[in-house]
């Protein structure tokens, strides 16, 4: 498959098309609306499902197999905030607080982008390792902590504690880590019983969620102009850089091609659930208009449409 085929497969998947339909719905001012409870229910389902699946896979994984990927994920999450912060401050002219806020988002990860990547590499016939959801869970937090510490440089960052509690007890970590633990404890046999609910309908439920996310992201499109050209360029370049680093790391530590592509996607993705909640509390003077527009309205759709095929292509390229 050449890059164009990969792109076509990504763009023409029901998931990406549902996201596009959501964007269209907002642009057409349709009265289509996902009630808040439906959005919440779908995100609970997706996070728990991915955790359970990963946990059941972990039950048959040796500690040795997962050690390196886990370390690689944490290292990526810890390193990204530094260059993001530096670039935004020096090249972009952002203040310390806004730069740190963006660093937290790009160092952390987006579960939905991850889930889309899993489905995508599977549809290419190059499935990722089953334990990748554990890597996702490990990558969510470090970047946020580091970014909040970076913000201290600028001014005293109160509420690091509150913010950390917010992330660790926040629903995305709780469901993900909780699902991993449950899947691990129940094992593949216990997982069998819930597979028809948590596994088979998964991709379809993801479509619905992306339809909704498309509507939400499109609401921010009008802010793209206000964030300035630098941030727009950053929101495209950062995932490319991080994604390439992630794929290369995966290749270096011996992940499968699919695993490398997914690790690249994790690095490339920007958080838009855990990080915003933590940053809003710990860095209240950061402008959410910057970090939400960049992560949700720019980086997320970019990864979904162009990033996934690129990281998959790069993984295939490295793995020969």
């Amino acid at each position, binding site marked *: 498959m050449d890059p164009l085929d990969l792109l076509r497969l990504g763009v023409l998947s029901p998931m990406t098309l549902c996201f596009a339909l959501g964007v269209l719905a907002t642009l057409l001012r349709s009265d289509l609306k996902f009630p808040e409870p439906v959005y919440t229910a779908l995100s609970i389902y997706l996070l728990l499902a991915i955790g359970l699946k990963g946990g059941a896979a972990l039950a048959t994984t040796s500690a040795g197999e997962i050690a390196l990927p886990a370390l690689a994920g944490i290292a990526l999450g810890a390193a990204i905030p530094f260059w993001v912060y530096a670039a935004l401050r020096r090249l972009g002219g952002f203040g310390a607080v806004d730069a740190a806020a963006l660093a937290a988002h790009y160092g952390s990860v987006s579960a939905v982008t991850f889930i889309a990547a899993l489905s995508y590499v599977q549809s290419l016939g190059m499935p990722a390792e089953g334990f990748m959801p554990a890597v996702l869970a490990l990558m969510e937090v470090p970047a946020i902590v580091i970014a909040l510490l970076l913000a201290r440089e600028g001014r005293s960052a109160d509420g690091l504690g509150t913010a950390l509690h917010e992330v660790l007890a926040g629903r995305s970590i709780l469901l993900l880590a909780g699902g991993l633990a449950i899947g691990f404890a129940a094992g593949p046999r216990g997982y069998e019983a819930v597979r028809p609910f948590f596994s088979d309908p998964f991709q379809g439920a993801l479509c619905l969620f992306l339809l909704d996310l498309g509507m939400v992201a499109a*609401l921010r499109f009008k*802010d793209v102009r206000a964030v300035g050209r630098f941030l727009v360029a950053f929101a495209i370049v950062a995932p490319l850089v991080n994604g390439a680093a992630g794929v290369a790391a995966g290749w270096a530590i011996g992940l499968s091609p699919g695993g490398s592509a997914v690790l690249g996607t994790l690095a490339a993705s920007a958080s838009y659930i855990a990080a915003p909640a933590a940053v809003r509390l710990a860095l209240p003077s950061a*402008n959410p*208009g910057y970090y939400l*527009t960049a992560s949700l309205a720019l980086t997320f759709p970019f990864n979904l449409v162009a990033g996934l095929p690129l990281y998959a292509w790069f993984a295939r390229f490295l793995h020969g």
Partner: protein
Amino acid sequence: MPDTRFSLVVILAEPEIADRIVADVKRLGARGYSRYEGFSEWRRGRGPDDAPGPHDWEGTHVRIETVVRAELATTILDHLSASYFRHYAVFAYVADATIARRDKYL
């Protein structure tokens, strides 16, 4: 009888800080409260209007209501003003209310 002058305090806040504000309201002495989810548009990026970056926002907010004595209403508004108005989207107003079961709320 100054005791009969009760005040309804209505607070609209962005969701991230709703739990904090409820805790504050209780700590300051309100006997009860109620909360609702609503939708609105607001200025989320705080600071002066001519600061760079996007400012407008729309989405859910939390509405917190409590009926308290007039002095406490003032205390609550002062606290909100000192703690949240600078960085967060918080809107608050006070109206008069005549309550039933007055004795419980003195």
